[in-house]
């Protein structure tokens, strides 16, 4: 019983990371209808910046802050320089272009930091005793940060004028522009916030995994699964599916260890084939099946 509870908590922390990393993809793919495969760069760069800052100063929180800023900066750069040029292009085109950018980023990482995986020291080593199970405090902190990220992004999209303009702009761009709202700027702001969270996700995941140049590849499909399972265009859906997938990875891995790597892909195929709208996707808006 204790083992299962431990796996549950570990799964929750994976869900937290998964949610933060998937946000950029969820907003790009689900809301702006552009498949931004390069979103995983914010995650990998975040992790590497954390590694550099931690090894220079020894302060993890400074590292996480730097990673968040790096993610935001990269997001700003990519959105203004690349995505604006390809919003109107065909889905296939944007997928291949952004994947190319992703590969360039991976190459840059290899040039700067080399091929060998780097370890990052966790900032807090303590264990928390809870119901007879000892859990690393660090994992609990991740869960809380991810929850806070969810609240922030939900407030941003549902409660602020930015979010309202964003949702209106997705429905009908021209009308929003006619109202005197700079929709480009709003897209950029939303995107930068999401990329900042991806950078933070990379920073938080750095002590858990080894930071390697190919960490983005591993995360790319996982976050796609998260977004599709949750339903395109729904932040709440992304959060719920991150919760589900975290448990699939953690508890599935406990039942039979290879399941941790392959079960998410099984989930993805089943979801795409049976319910391509995902859990919270809007049916009319979903673009899974051919008409």
């Amino acid at each position, binding site marked *: 019983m204790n083992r299962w509870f431990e796996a549950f908590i570990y799964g929750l922390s994976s869900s937290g990371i998964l949610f933060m990393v998937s946000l950029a993809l969820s907003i790009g793919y689900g809301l702006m209808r552009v498949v931004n495969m390069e979103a995983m760069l914010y995650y990998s760069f975040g992790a590497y910046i954390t590694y550099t800052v931690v090894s220079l100063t020894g302060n993890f929180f400074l590292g996480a802050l730097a990673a968040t800023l790096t993610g935001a900066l990269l997001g700003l750069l990519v959105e203004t320089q690349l995505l604006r040029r390809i919003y109107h292009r065909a889905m296939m085109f944007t997928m291949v272009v952004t994947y*190319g950018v992703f590969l360039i980023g*991976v*190459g840059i990482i290899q040039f700067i930091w080399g*091929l060998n995986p780097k370890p990052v020291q966790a900032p807090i080593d303590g264990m928390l005793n809870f119901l007879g199970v000892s859990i690393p405090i660090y994992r609990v902190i991740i869960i809380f940060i991810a929850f806070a990220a969810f609240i922030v992004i939900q407030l941003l999209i549902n409660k602020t004028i930015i979010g309202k303009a964003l949702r209106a702009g997705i429905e009908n761009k021209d009308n929003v522009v006619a109202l005197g709202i700079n929709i480009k700027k709003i897209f950029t702001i939303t995107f930068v916030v999401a990329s900042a969270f991806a950078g933070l996700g990379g920073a938080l995941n750095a002590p858990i995994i080894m930071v390697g140049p190919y960490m983005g590849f591993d995360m790319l499909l996982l976050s796609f699964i998260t977004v*599709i399972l949750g339903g395109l265009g729904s932040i709440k859906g992304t959060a719920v599916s991150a919760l589900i997938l975290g448990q699939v990875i953690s508890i599935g891995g406990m039942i039979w260890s*290879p399941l941790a790597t392959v079960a998410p892909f099984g989930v*993805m195929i089943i979801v795409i084939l049976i319910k391509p709208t995902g859990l919270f996707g809007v049916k009319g808006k979903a*673009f899974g099946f051919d008409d």
Partner: protein
Amino acid sequence: MDSSTDKGSGTPKPSRSLDLGFLGPLAVAGGLIALRFIFPDKLSFFTEVCIYTLYVMGNNVLMGYLGYASFGQPFYLSAGAYSAAFFFSYIGSNPLLAILMSLLVGLVLSGIFGPIFMRLKGNYFTLVNAALCAIGIFTVEKLLIGITNGNDGLWFRAKIAKLPILDIRLTQNLFLFVVILLTIVLFLYRWMDKSALGAVFRATKINSRKMRFLGFNPYGIRIIGFTIATTLSTLAGSLYAINFGFVNPNLGENSRAVEVLIATLLGGVGTVYGPLFGAFGFLGIKDIVSRFMSRWEFVVGIITILVLFFFSKGIWGFFNLSGTNVKNRIKSLFKAQSTGKEN
């Protein structure tokens, strides 16, 4: 279709300008064999180019004719390679039968996945293939480790038997064999491009709703295209296996999925001879770059961006365009002369 021809207002369609008719595939074969004698130490490179061309041609059916990008083509490639490897390791030794078996596997795979996947729209098709590729890697690496040897791979070079006429265990004969196969496939491919099937593919890509209105079944057409693509990929896979004499899960790696897409784009999407140039260009660049660095994602990424934004017609399209331009210029020159005489 009409709009694309109207745009040029009078210029002939590019795809027809440099087409040599039935001599085209023979010219390709002749050119490859000539290259092999001009650069004798590059023999294995040319063999790989031929095999890769088949693989790119498969992807070109999906990408150029049907308008689908798949991030899971390595799955079909490695399925072909592994079926040939299983044949050599556990069943027999005749390479032709191994190739036949991989073609059968290709047909079975497309029979299973075609009807399911071709209902999906482009971006979901891409992702579901990527997921399939990940599952395929897992299957050969972990699940079937008893018969695939996992990451160590299967070695069977010694088990390949001699063919009655051509001993394809020798590299120069294998090259010849692959060139012959490629020529046959090119003949068929050219026929597909010119026949009603090719026209139907392109029309479905542009407007599937109108095709349905005309009484065609776009879903069935796509399944046919998917089947062609998959069997070409498995064929290429089996030739890969025979060429290297071993297979390992590396061949089907997810991160390599984009290579074939880029080779297709580089050569020219939706053309008959584009894949050949794409394979040549891509493997050539890879050959040069890999002398300077071991992992070359950076270069692949740069090529992708450059090709997509500035070179979207690809190498073959570029040749065609300049070919038509030269032709037109000569024609207009003659016209000007003749009109001049009349005046």
